[in-house]
């Protein structure tokens, strides 16, 4: 009997107008979306390759130790799931005066949009009248009059309805997968296809959740018109309102200073420290003037040992020649350098310590605020699904953190390599200058970004996936309870 109900429900649905509309909408949007995103992905890949080449070329021709920090290659390649899901793009993480403002006004359209907006809406449209519609047309009474349990009816409706609902989704997904697999610019390995499969399963969990929500509301309503209004009311709250409001609520509950303010605090501290440093230099200078007299005035005229410790190559050469000719002058320079260094070192240290402390504090606070927002938003299935889909495909917050982590490791490796290279260069040439001498980095370690392992991703998404399953169970149990006491007249 269950089979009969499933078959009846399935055919009833696929012969309906909403099925046709859902099918057309899903297939057209998915194909259009994937085609455009694949093209976009190709452009981003080309842009990434160009950036890597530019940086390599510069390092091969202009690398100096003084600029090494700014020249560490840290380019993030486009995510491999970019043809399906638009992640938090590299552009958004670059604070530039010339940022493109359009994506802020219109968030991009991708696979996540298809599942969270179109499929969830379609799921509600498939189930809002599953019980009320039959009650209003009188067929429910006839069915119940036979020797069939209510459990079987509800189960049949759920299975038949879900099966018909998933046809447009699976079909459009297959078309999308086919397009991705035949496209030469996209090369997915086994892990990527496994992630795609898991993404499909997570999407199905999300879609059935909304089907069950519609079914539940239908068992608690008498009329289809009321049921659809309640469904849309909840849909608006769960999809459009709660997830978007939660980050703002968390920002109010747990306040953090803005990066603007921290940056300003850092700059003001540095500015004041440099002022103190200038005063110290003047004091030392005064002492040297009284001790050494004319030779020190001569040294000062070369702008030697200025606040930034820099002087022009011509002056540097003149100072060196003068020091070689006059041992007393050399002693004076060395003594001045040493004293200045000893006096300013604690100030440089305090600047660095202050910088590190300010930003570390802010990062910790921001991480707490993000965690709070993430947990608050978990009451919406939309947020849970977004976390699962993004983290599984490496397009979410976790992938950003993972990139930062791998990038940090690479940076420290590169830094050690740079220091070693500079020591070698100094050994070969004692006149080697940090700021201007070319540093050969041809055998430098290259940055190769590797995706996080599937196991790691899966461990991270399982709690959120679990919440989605829990929503399914709760809605099914509620629908079951509602239908058990439903008045079919």
């Amino acid at each position, binding site marked *: 009997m269950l089979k009969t109900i499933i078959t009846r429900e399935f055919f009833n649905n696929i012969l309906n*107008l909403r099925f046709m509309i859902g099918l057309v909408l899903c297939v057209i949007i998915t194909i259009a979306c994937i085609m*455009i995103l694949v*093209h*976009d992905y190709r*452009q981003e890949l080309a*842009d990434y390759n160009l*950036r890597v080449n530019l940086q390599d070329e*510069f390092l091969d021709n*202009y690398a*100096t130790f*003084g*600029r090494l920090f*700014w020249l560490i290659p840290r*380019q993030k390649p486009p995510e491999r799931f970019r043809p399906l899901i638009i992640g938090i793009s590299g*552009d958004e993480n*670059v*604070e*530039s*005066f*010339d940022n493109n*403002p*359009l994506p*802020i*006004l*219109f*968030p*991009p*359209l991708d696979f996540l949009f298809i599942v969270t907006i179109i499929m969830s809406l379609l799921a509600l*449209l498939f189930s809002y*009248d599953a019980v009320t519609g039959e009650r209003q047309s009188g067929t429910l009474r006839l069915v119940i009059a036979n020797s069939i349990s209510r459990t079987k009816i509800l189960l049949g409706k759920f299975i038949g309805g879900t099966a018909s609902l998933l046809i447009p989704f699976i079909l459009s997904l297959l078309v999308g997968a086919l397009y991705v697999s035949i496209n030469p610019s996209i090369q997915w390995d086994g892990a990527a296809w496994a992630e795609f499969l898991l993404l499909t399963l997570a999407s199905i969990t999300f879609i059935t959740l909304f089907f069950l929500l519609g079914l539940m509301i239908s068992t608690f309503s008498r009329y289809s*018109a009321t049921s659809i209004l*309640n469904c849309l*009311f909840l849909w*608006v709250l769960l999809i*459009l*309102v709660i997830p*978007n409001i939660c*980050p*703002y609520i968390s*920002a*109010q509950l747990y306040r953090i200073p*803005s990066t*603007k*303010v921290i*940056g300003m605090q850092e*700059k*003001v501290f540095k*500015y004041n420290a440099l002022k103190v440093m200038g005063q110290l230099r003047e004091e030392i200078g005064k002492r040297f003037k009284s001790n050494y007299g004319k030779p020190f005035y001569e040294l000062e005229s070369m702008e030697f040992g200025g606040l930034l410790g*820099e002087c*022009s*190559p*011509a002056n540097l050469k003149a100072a060196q020649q003068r020091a070689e000719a006059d041992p007393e002058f050399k002693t004076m320079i060395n003594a001045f350098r040493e004293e200045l260094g000893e006096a300013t070192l604690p100030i440089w240290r305090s600047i660095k310590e202050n910088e590190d402390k300010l930003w570390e504090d802010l*990062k910790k606070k921001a991480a707490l605020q*993000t965690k709070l*927002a993430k947990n608050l*938003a978990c009451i919406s299935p939309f947020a849970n699904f*977004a976390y699962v889909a993004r983290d599984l495909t490496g397009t979410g*917050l976790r992938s950003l953190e993972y990139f930062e982590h791998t990038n940090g490791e690479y940076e420290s490796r590169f830094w050690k390599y740079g220091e070693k290279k500079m020591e070698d260069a100094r050994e070969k040439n004692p006149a080697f*200058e940090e700021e*201007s001498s070319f540093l050969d980095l041809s055998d430098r370690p290259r940055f190769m970004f590797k995706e996080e392992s599937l196991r790691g991703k899966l461990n991270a998404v399982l709690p959120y996936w679990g919440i989605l399953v829990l929503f399914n169970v709760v809605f099914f149990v509620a629908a079951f309870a509602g239908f058990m006491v439903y008045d079919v007249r």
Partner: protein
Amino acid sequence: MLKSIIRKEILNNLLSYKFSIIIILSTILILVSIFVMYRDYCLALDNYESIQSKSDYPHPIAIIRPTPLAIFAKGLEDNICRSHEGDDGEIKVSSKPQSLNNIFKLFTTPDLLYIIKVILSLCAMLFAFDIICGEKEIGTLRQSLSNSLKRPILIIGKWIGGFISFILPFFIAVLLGTIFVTLSPVVDINVQNWEKLGLFLLSSVLYLAIFFSLGLLISCLTHQSSSSLVISLFVWTIFVFLIPNLGNILARQLVRIPTVQQLELKRELNRSWLMIERNRADDSQHREIYNRFRAENDKHTEDYRNRLNRLAKVSQNITRFSPAAAFTFLATDIAGTGMTEERGLKSAVVLYFDILGDWDLEKWSQPGFSYQRFSYQSCSIKEVLYQGGLGNCLILILFNILFFAGAHVAFLRYDVR
């Protein structure tokens, strides 16, 4: 007769379950949104004031005060309210207020603009989807038309009555929210802002009327409420989400533009080149090296900005096929958080640092160096309308006329049996 139809329609709606649900939803959402965005505005204001109060910070900074209208339409406010500093021909911007909390990047800003654009437009369609076909199903339409009642009067009456009953709760909720905001001592709304708020609400009414008319048109084209509802939701998805979002991506295919990452990398490499060459060369060559650096930077910047402007134009033209996009452009421009304002501010910032001269950070840091503070006058309503606002306004009116005329024609040929 028209009056009776309007009255009947209003009373019918007021007593319906649909009305209760929508009034609860819209009131809660609008009030929550205004409260949340008000708190967000207070945070932005705190940031602005703490930066302005750093009197011992010597470098010139270009920053503007957050506009209170961002509470209603945030748009590009985060971009607009960044602080700008000039450094060797480049403009450095500080991060956005909440930029370290990446979760903001995953979700949309829940401001009044979003509520109107997405949620209330859906409510408008829900109000109108069964106006004609619903009455046909229960048989009252046949009875109404069996009297000496002309079809145009009936449909006009239904439109006016239905729309008034829909728009009233919206106005009450916005009014309550606005009172709450204006009572706060933090928010300073001047006359121009009041005018802008009025225009924003007017454009919102125009926008919502489009979806109401569209719902009515679909109702006149279908014979069953369930079909009308499905088609309405389908069309709503296309107009509100699909065209604006897909259009934006499509524009990027038409206008090729390098990523900001590429632009910033080129600048960074160029800066490194400057530093290295400066250290290698004599003082006499510094000016020449610096000029080469500036010329190279200016070339990249000009090329990028030209492309970005073209992209913005193409994107605006494509997405305007959707009333949601036209409304977004219009509303954000009116609120002073849109593309027009952003463009204007960028030009003003570039001009400011150009006038300060030579882009020399060390010179600006000298104790005796005094400079004029950055000042910026946000676009007036006239400027907004002149720079594309009027076009967007006309698009909204055109959509209204088109959908209502369509509904009118369809109803004249409607089989009421």
